[in-house]
């Protein structure tokens, strides 16, 4: 635990120190240096926890906090490793990313500060065991990420999305406060450890608390229908911030849900089915909308929602299996969820960083006007492709491992002799398969439109070189991790067993590890087979020639005739017509010499279009009625004041 605080102190020191340095360039290097050292220290302390058990620090603050307890148990250590590792890489990446902004003389002082504050607050959230302090740190995390999102605050859209994010976070906090308030009123304490006992004694009370906790933390994690802030806030933030938020920060929501499960233990069966349903909807909704986006980062944000859904599916299968007392199934499902938390952090950070690398070079996030980047930015393209293969859960990369765990838990859950479970598992099975396949559609689209083929516009045409090393190295580290975890699932399973052991006694794990050894050998053999075939092909290959693409007899077509992103998803959109709100803006070409014509299609989020916008409209209408009270007229305000004093006086007289 000491090293943990030492690490946080390093990061804090970096933030403060950089505040006094004038040169922006140096400032970034400084904070990335200090946060890397801090990250190493935190990771060291977390690994020590895995080996020698939980560490604890109690500070007697008194005041309203009573005693403040920080505890680094296996769950916290698991999250702390992910948080510190990904954040440190993202901060290193920022050196290269912010260079063009620094050249334009944009001040980044506050940005650096909030970057470190976000990292610190995330690291503190996962160890804090005092409800009140937890809320304060939670708020600090939301606020610092808000300031990071509005980095390009000259743009009004950015401010708008930032405020939307802030509003969502505060709705989330309301539920979290309710959750903690319920527990602490009952237990007369703010410490988590007294909450367990209370929840154990009164199960109906625990169920209510569970629902509050799930909704509150679910908003942070981005479960549908509370996902709407994600696709707005993530694309607007700088790429490394989106990487931190999407890969790590929304996982603090998952952390909250896991703590909720730990505190409230297993809820009623109806609630479990509800959680499963929400997770399935989240997964499907996220990936459906991801597949129709044209903005790369917006697509990635929706795909984060999908992955949160997958994590949720794993957690709910865990709840289901524990409810019916099938510990092996529960263990596999829980490990699947934990593995997916880790894997998603890795590949989503990788994808966001690669998308940022494209953005810095082409100044656009719209994939429809990119194309052919693989020839000019081969490393970025390779990283994005690796990230894409991983996120589609294809072997031998890491996404496959976690989804494989979850699939195995489904298969074994078929053992549970219960009609409801059978139907639920069958649906989960089909949904996860559907999610995987739509993910393939979505990522083949993005990769091929943005990176393959020929350049569709000047933006893509004018790119000459790949980005600088400070940007490529973090991406390289993440991509190699994707492959390594994919090839050796047994080690990652052992790693996820640590946090899972808090919940389940893992006696049944040995058999699973030997099973995973076999899987690992299979995947290695698979990779070997591919390499072998490539080698054989190299030996027997014939003479090669280059010629232009076959165009039905036409040569030298313009690059605009290539398939576009919207036409790629066209067939898929027609299947799922009712799920999307599509608007078309058509101006047809008229006359013999048509001057201008356009055809623009847009797909909006149905939740936003049919639920949130009407509510907001109604809200505005309702609130505008109060304009009489607050009309900007100072004399009226003085009248209000006099009236208040008068009433107060009368009350005072009456009471006395």
């Amino acid at each position: 635990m000491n090293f943990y605080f030492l690490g946080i102190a390093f990061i804090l020191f970096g933030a403060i120190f950089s505040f006094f340095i004038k040169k922006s360039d140096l400032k970034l290097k400084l904070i990335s240096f200090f946060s890397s050292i801090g990250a190493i220290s935190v990771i060291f302390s977390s690994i020590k926890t895995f080996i020698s058990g939980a560490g604890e620090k109690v500070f007697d603050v008194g005041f309203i906090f009573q005693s403040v307890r920080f505890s680094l148990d296996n769950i916290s250590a698991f999250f702390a490793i992910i948080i510190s590792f990904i954040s440190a890489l993202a901060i290193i990446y920022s050196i290269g990313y912010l260079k063009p902004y620094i050249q334009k003389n944009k001040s980044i002082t506050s940005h650096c500060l909030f970057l470190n504050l976000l990292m610190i607050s995330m690291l503190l959230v996962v160890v804090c065991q005092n409800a009140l302090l937890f809320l304060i740190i939670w708020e600090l995390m939301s606020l610092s990420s808000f300031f990071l999102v509005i980095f390009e605050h000259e743009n009004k859209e950015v401010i708008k999305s930032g405020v939307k994010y802030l509003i969502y976070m505060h709705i989330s906090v309301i539920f979290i406060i309710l959750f903690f308030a319920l527990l602490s009123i009952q237990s007369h304490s703010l410490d988590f450890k007294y909450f367990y006992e209370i929840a154990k004694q009164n199960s109906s009370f625990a169920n209510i608390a569970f629902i509050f906790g799930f909704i509150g933390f679910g908003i942070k994690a981005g479960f549908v229908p509370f996902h709407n802030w994600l696709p707005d806030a993530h694309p607007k933030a700088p790429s490394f911030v989106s990487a931190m938020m999407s890969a790590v920060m929304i996982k603090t929501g998952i952390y909250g849900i896991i703590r909720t499960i730990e505190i409230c233990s297993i809820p009623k069966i109806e609630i479990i089915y509800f959680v499963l349903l929400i997770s399935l909807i989240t997964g499907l909704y996220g990936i459906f909308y991801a597949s129709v986006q044209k903005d790369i980062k917006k697509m990635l944000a929706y795909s984060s929602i999908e992955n949160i859904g997958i994590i949720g599916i794993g957690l709910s299968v865990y709840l289901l299996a524990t409810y019916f007392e099938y510990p092996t199934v529960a263990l596999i499902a829980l490990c699947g969820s934990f593995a997916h938390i880790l894997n998603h952090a890795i590949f989503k950070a990788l994808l966001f960083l690669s998308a940022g690398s494209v953005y810095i070079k082409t100044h656009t996030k719209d994939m429809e006007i990119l194309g052919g980047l693989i020839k000019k930015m081969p490393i970025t393209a390779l990283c994005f492709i690796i990230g894409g293969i991983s996120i589609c859960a294809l072997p031998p990369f890491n996404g496959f491992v976690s989804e494989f765990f979850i699939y195995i838990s489904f298969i074994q859950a078929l053992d549970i002799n219960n009609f409801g479970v059978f139907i639920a598992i069958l649906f989960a099975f089909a949904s996860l398969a559907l999610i995987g396949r739509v993910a393939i559609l979505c990522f083949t689209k993005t990769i091929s439109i943005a990176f393959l083929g020929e350049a569709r516009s000047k933006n893509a045409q004018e790119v000459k070189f790949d980005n600088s090393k400070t940007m490529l190295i973090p991406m390289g580290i993440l991509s190699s991790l994707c492959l390594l975890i994919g090839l050796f699932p047994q080690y990652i399973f052992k790693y996820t067993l640590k946090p899972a052991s808090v919940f389940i006694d893992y006696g049944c794990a040995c058999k699973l590890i030997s099973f995973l050894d076999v899987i690992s050998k299979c995947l290695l053999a698979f990779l070997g087979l591919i390499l072998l075939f490539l080698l054989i092909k190299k030996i027997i290959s014939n003479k090669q020639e280059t010629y232009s693409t076959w165009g039905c007899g036409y040569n030298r077509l313009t690059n605009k005739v290539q398939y576009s992103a919207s036409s790629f998803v066209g067939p898929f959109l027609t299947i799922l017509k009712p799920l999307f709100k599509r608007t078309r803006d058509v101006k047809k070409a008229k006359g013999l010499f048509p001057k201008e014509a356009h055809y623009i299609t847009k797909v909006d989020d149905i939740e936003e279009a049919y639920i949130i916008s009407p509510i907001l409209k109604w809200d505005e209408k309702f609130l505008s009625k109060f304009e009489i009270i607050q009309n900007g007229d100072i004399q009226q305000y003085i009248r209000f004041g006099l009236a208040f004093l008068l009433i107060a006086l009368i009350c005072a007289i009456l009471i006395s």
Partner: protein
Amino acid sequence: MLIKFLNIILLLITPFLMVGLIRKTKAFWGARKGASIFQPFYDFVKLMKKESVFSSSTTLIFKLSPIISFACVIFAGLFVPMVQGQSIINIQGGIIIFAYVLALSKFISILSAMETASSFEGMGASREACFTTIIEPAFFIVVASIMALSKIYTFDSLNMILYSSNHLGYLIILFAILALLIMLIVEGARVPVDDPSTHLELTMIHEVMILDNCSQELALISYSAWMKMFLISSLIATILLPLGLSLWVSLVSFLGVILFISILIGTIESAIARLRMGHVFEFVFVMSSFALVVASLVALKLYGV
């Protein structure tokens, strides 16, 4: 060991024969003599000797993708039970590795099609990606329900449904096979979904994706498409054939089922025309409904509701 060896031989050779047979059947219904059933193999050898031409828009992905996707299909083949209902690698969750490895081959081939910057190939790739999204969940529902029935969590469970014999059991077998047949037609790119013998781009799916491939690459792509067809047929054969046959009886009956399926596909191709693209979706959705029927029959059998 012998069985594993036999399986590998079958995996490598039968795809050619299957396609040869399908073509022969089509020739028979068209009152033609038709080429020898070994013609696909001769074509393969001929293509392997030819010089490659690559589009100037493409990079390494285009060159490597046929090989990677071929390796994927071969690897997927290792998990599929063939002679005596035994597969080369038999592990729990093999079914998932099978499906996901095939998905990887699809992923790579879509990328390679899109790399040519041709709108034809884009069209094919988009359709291919779209159809899988419908096929795969249905496949998983069929397999998961069968697993729930037999409580065996490998591909072996396909063998076992034969032994759950009462009327419901037979119905389950019937619908499972129908679902797999549709999957076979869609994944193998056969009529009425796709037509491998014409080159009219606007109506095609798989065939249009490979317009720019030639020589060795084309040979490998066609070979892996045929092999995929063979793999799904072997799943059907596994459902149909009882366990405990002696090696040679099992081999012969396995080949018999494959022969029957090839003739059936040839007959279907001669009897019906290709569907219009809009109707292809409806055809593919039929598989999902069959899968749901299988699931509800299994629920009926297990829980009697």
